[in-house]
């Protein structure tokens, strides 16, 4: 009995208005502070530290309990005021529940789509991910939150300390003596007085990636000349080559005819070949600089570099249609798919030519001859020069006021890799130079190591190797999106934007088809305030790039339908409840008898409110709940 009484008392205080008022005051105060804090530190931090924090969630939970209990305590709800009161307060509980569900159950992210690229099906979700595998342990994953000052939250993942973050780190290598095989490495120092900075770079014959380095204005190269002819060739100015087509050319040969399509210019266009009374129509449908298939077997480009350029063609002869993927890499066979009718005969030939690493217009080349002596060749817009070079010698190649000095030469070099954060923008000013990196250490005493973004890295320790991966949070969508067109509408006679619209095709595998071999394609328009829905995902226009009108950023979101339903139900309840609470009685009165103006005012609503505030004597519903 005393226990029950205590329970009742607890319920009374939890549901009391005397708790509600301080709670509301507290919430209002916190929110005021939060908005001013946000003006200082930005919204990401405030979202993380306040609005999405467990303690704020707890406060909201307490509010929901208070609202819910107070409503129960006032049962039975007789009269418009009480009914309105109950609907409003439970409506608020429903909204709070809905909001909590949104935080935990919804997925959203941004997708960057381009008109000149293939379909995209990966979504960049807010935040970064770190995956850690200690020696002999299963791997552990954690989401990272990086504050504006570079602090990382959480500070520990699976025994690894996360010490800091830089958004502008580069991976560097150093070469040391002591290699067992011949591997020449040189250290070059580049100086520019005009830019007031100097820069140091290692070049080496091996690993392969280090024989050339692009520093922006020019390329640095290291060449090992095995024969005298090779030495001569390396020291000769290169022949001027015509400007290469950036995305290459596709040549179609058929029945003795051949036509060439310039991918830069003619992507999306079609051309026709006529021979022997037949017509073959070829359309270039898509281009991917770094082709691969994603989880839905949709073509995507992994990067923007020309690592594996591919072009998709649609070929039709009126009766049959085929889809072809042709690759810039001569070692890769074309992929041919019949989409309609029999295979096209007679067969045609497709050749895709693309220069993936065009010769640089400016370079500084160091050549090691058979005897191990060093030579240089330098080319710039001002001319070509070459000669012998020794440690300490400087050459002015002619790009800006750069001076290149050979600082070190190691004939038998071994490689030592390291990631270092840059203090500021690099000398070359190349925006792609830096990338995010995470500073970690193994245990408390370990040496701090920078982990590059997007590349799994091993760290040695006494117990064995740790594997750490620091990567963007990506989500594989069950469909892919192709941006067909991005339309920017301007206000008449001006440059100001009236509206921007993304014309997209949404391509999803047919769910009934177990092999996921057939697809449904749905064309949609998405513009501001007018999202589209596809298989439970909402696709909305988010932003655009004024400097590049072939690009559009879309927001993609999924939220279980019942979560949306909860918020909308709660909203309707609150609005209807408040209206009923305030005006239900007056309206009811109006319907039954004459309304009497000021006198009516003076007799209301104090007495009733006071009664509502005082605790009811019997609480039947609660008694029932408590098992009495």
């Amino acid at each position: 009995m005393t226990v029950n009484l205590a329970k009742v008392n607890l319920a009374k205080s939890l549901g009391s208005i005397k708790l509600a008022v301080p709670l509301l005051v507290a919430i209002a105060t916190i929110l005021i502070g939060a908005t001013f804090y946000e003006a200082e530190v930005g919204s990401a931090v405030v979202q993380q530290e306040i609005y999405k924090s467990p303690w704020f969630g707890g406060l909201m939970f307490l509010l929901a309990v208070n609202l819910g209990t107070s409503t129960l305590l006032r049962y039975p709800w007789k009269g418009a005021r009480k009914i309105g009161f109950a609907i409003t307060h439970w409506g608020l509980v429903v909204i709070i529940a809905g909001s909590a569900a949104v935080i935990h159950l919804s997925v959203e992210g941004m997708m960057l789509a381009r008109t000149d690229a293939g379909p995209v099906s990966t979504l960049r979700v807010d935040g970064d991910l770190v995956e850690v595998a200690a020696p002999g342990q299963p791997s552990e994953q954690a989401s990272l939150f990086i504050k504006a000052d570079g602090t990382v939250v959480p500070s520990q993942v699976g025994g690894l300390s996360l010490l800091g973050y830089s958004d502008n780190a580069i991976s560097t290598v150093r070469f040391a003596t002591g290699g067992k095989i011949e591997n020449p490495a040189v250290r070059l120092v580049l100086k520019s007085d005009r830019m007031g900075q100097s820069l140091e770079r290692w070049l080496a014959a091996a690993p392969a990636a280090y024989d050339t380095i692009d520093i922006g204005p020019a390329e640095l190269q290291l060449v090992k000349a095995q024969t005298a002819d090779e030495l001569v060739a390396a020291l000769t100015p290169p022949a001027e080559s015509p400007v290469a087509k950036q995305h290459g050319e596709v040549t179609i040969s058929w029945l003795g005819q051949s036509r060439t399509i310039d991918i830069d210019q003619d992507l999306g266009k079609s051309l026709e070949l006529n021979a022997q009374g037949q017509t073959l129509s070829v359309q270039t449908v898509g281009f991917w600089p770094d082709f691969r298939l994603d989880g839905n077997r949709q073509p995507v480009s992994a990067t923007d570099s020309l690592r594996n350029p591919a072009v998709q063609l649609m070929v039709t002869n009126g009766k049959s249609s085929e889809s072809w993927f042709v690759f810039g890499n001569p070692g890769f066979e074309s992929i041919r798919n019949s989409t309609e009718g029999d295979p096209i005969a007679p067969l045609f030939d497709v050749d895709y030519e693309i220069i993936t690493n065009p010769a640089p217009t400016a370079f500084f080349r160091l050549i090691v001859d058979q005897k191990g002596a060093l030579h240089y060749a330098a080319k710039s817009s001002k001319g070509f020069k070459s000669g012998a070079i020794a440690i300490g010698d400087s050459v002015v190649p002619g790009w800006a006021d750069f001076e290149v000095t050979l600082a070190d030469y190691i004939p038998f070099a071994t490689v030592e890799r390291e990631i270092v954060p840059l203090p500021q923008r690099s000398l070359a000013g190349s925006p792609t130079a830096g990338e995010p990196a995470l500073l970690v250490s193994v245990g408390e005493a370990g040496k701090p190591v920078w982990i590059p973004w997007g590349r799994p890295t091993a760290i040695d320790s006494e117990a064995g190797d740790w594997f750490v991966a620091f990567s963007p949070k990506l989500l594989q969508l069950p469909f892919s999106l192709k941006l067909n067109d991005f339309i920017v509408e301007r206000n008449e006679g001006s440059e100001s934007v009236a509206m921007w619209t993304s014309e997209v095709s949404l391509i999803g595998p047919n769910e009934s088809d177990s092999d996921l071999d057939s697809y449904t394609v749905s064309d949609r328009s998405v513009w501001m305030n007018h999202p589209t829905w596809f298989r439970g995902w909402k696709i909305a226009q988010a932003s655009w790039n004024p400097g590049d009108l072939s690009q559009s950023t879309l927001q993609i979101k999924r939220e279980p339908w019942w979560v949306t339903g909860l918020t909308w139900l709660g909203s309707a309840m609150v609005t209807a409840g408040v209206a009923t609470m305030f005006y239900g009685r007056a309206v009811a009165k109006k319907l039954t008898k004459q309304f009497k103006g000021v006198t009516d005012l003076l007799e209301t609503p104090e007495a009733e409110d006071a009664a509502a505030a005082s605790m009811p004597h019997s609480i039947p519903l609660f008694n029932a709940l408590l098992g009495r």
Partner: protein
Amino acid sequence: MTASSQQKVKSQDPLAHQLDDSQNETISMIKLIKFAIGLTLGLLLIALPFSQFQPSPLNPLETIVVQQGGRKKPLDTVAQETVAKIHGATVYRHDGIVEDSMTAFMSLWLNNRDWNQAPFVLFSYRPLKEKVGLDPDQKYFSFQTLMTNQALGDVVREAHKKDLEGADLSRNEREAITIEDRLTLMLGSVDDNAIAIVPHPTDVKGKWMGISEESLYSAEAIAPLLSNFTAMKQRFLAQPDSLSGLSTLAAQLTSDLRTLSPVVYPVVGVMDKEVFFNHFHPFASAWKLYGIAFIVMLATVWIKPVELYWSAIGLFVGGVIVQSYGFLLRMQIADRPPVTNMYESVIWVGFGIAAIALIFELIYRAKYYLLAAAPLAVICLILADSLPAVLDPSISPLVPVLRDNFWLSIHVPTIALSYASFALALGIGHVALGSYLFTPSAKARIHLLSQLNYRVLQVGVLLLTAGIILGGIWAHFSWGRFWGWDPKETWALIALLCYLVPLHGRLVGWIGNFGISVASVAAFNAVLMAWYGVNFVLGTGLHSYGFGTGGSEWMIASVIGLDMLFVLAATARYKGWLNKLSISAGETTASANS
């Protein structure tokens, strides 16, 4: 006792009931007549000066269509906006004459006098004037003075440099850029091609041209137009003081332009509506009516023999009608729902205060609704009319996020109406606190006032709740989430909480009538913050399309400060602190208190 409660007493007597019928009819008749007199008088007052308007020789030019800022507008609007932007007012007073915006703009456009030396450019920020060595007491400067001021040029360059680097600008630098904008606009206006008046030949949304720019038309088609324009210009240059012969030339120019591209050129009458709107000044007329209604009502309350309650209501209704009409015109001209920027929100809140007060006044006949509402509506409308730099009245196209959405077009007006209710509560709160301060013995009135206040707060809470929720629904479509703790959202919620706390506190008995009065005044600061402060004080968040340059923060802060002092004084009087002070000062009176 009020009139209606006396009626109640009477009507309880069944015998008196029948006898009163004819008498009641007469009373209603008198009320109706008083109301009609108030209303007609008010509307006449507005209409009269308009009919006396002197037709100017420039009138036919007013409706020439100009494509500017992403829409087509009459030359009259261009003239008003340009003069207001450079001069800070729509009339230019110089050498003892008052020039309207049309005359000043035509003179500037066709350059018929020495504008280099004319003290036309508004420069009001004193610290910057002192810094660059200009007379801080002078308000207007000539183009030449400002252009040749080396120190000002340095500040502008520094500001642009900082802007490029993404650094925050100081107040001096922001003001310097404003001055630079004014000078650029002025320089740009002195050119035949400063405004695009030649319509695109085919495309309704195509870019229009200046009159002597390389034309989209054949030389033959454009020649009469050009010669007409040249003749007009000659006329301006030759006889700047007597423009009477211009009417025919101007009318000819207007019709020539129309015949060039009849499909693209807006139909006759569209521009007339906007020119009428410009000249009518509906919002300025409305506040005058509210002001008169306030005075009449005050007389009715204070001077016993004056019974003009219904005339005051009539005048007030006149104000509401004029303001609604103005708002409707503006919506038609801009072709979009109301309340899309700060200026429109201030006008809308002014309207909301008047409309809500009118409804309550008609229900309760309490006089105080009108008395509290009228000054507030007047303040809103005067503010909107006199601060073109902060509250820009020009109609310009909407940013994409605000376009084409049903939920948005009801969310913002609903929120703004809730602000209007809270503003009305603020007004009634002031009347109540004033009563506590000056006539604490009038218990009945104070009690009535707090009841009236409570009713308005209810409306505010309902509208704000509904408005926040409608905003959530819009955000769901536009930003993909119902609630995201954006500062504007958060502050709307804070404002709601600031009203919910006292309303709930009242239920427990922690605060009473006095507390409600104080709360309705104090909590309005949260509304101000949500409405104005988030944009100008915090300056962050997704609602940034509502942002503008701030300014006058100190003025606002001091007004709020003074108001809070008033609340404090009323509280001191109510709680008897002053008595206690005097008691502790003079021990001898202590016994009197107990």
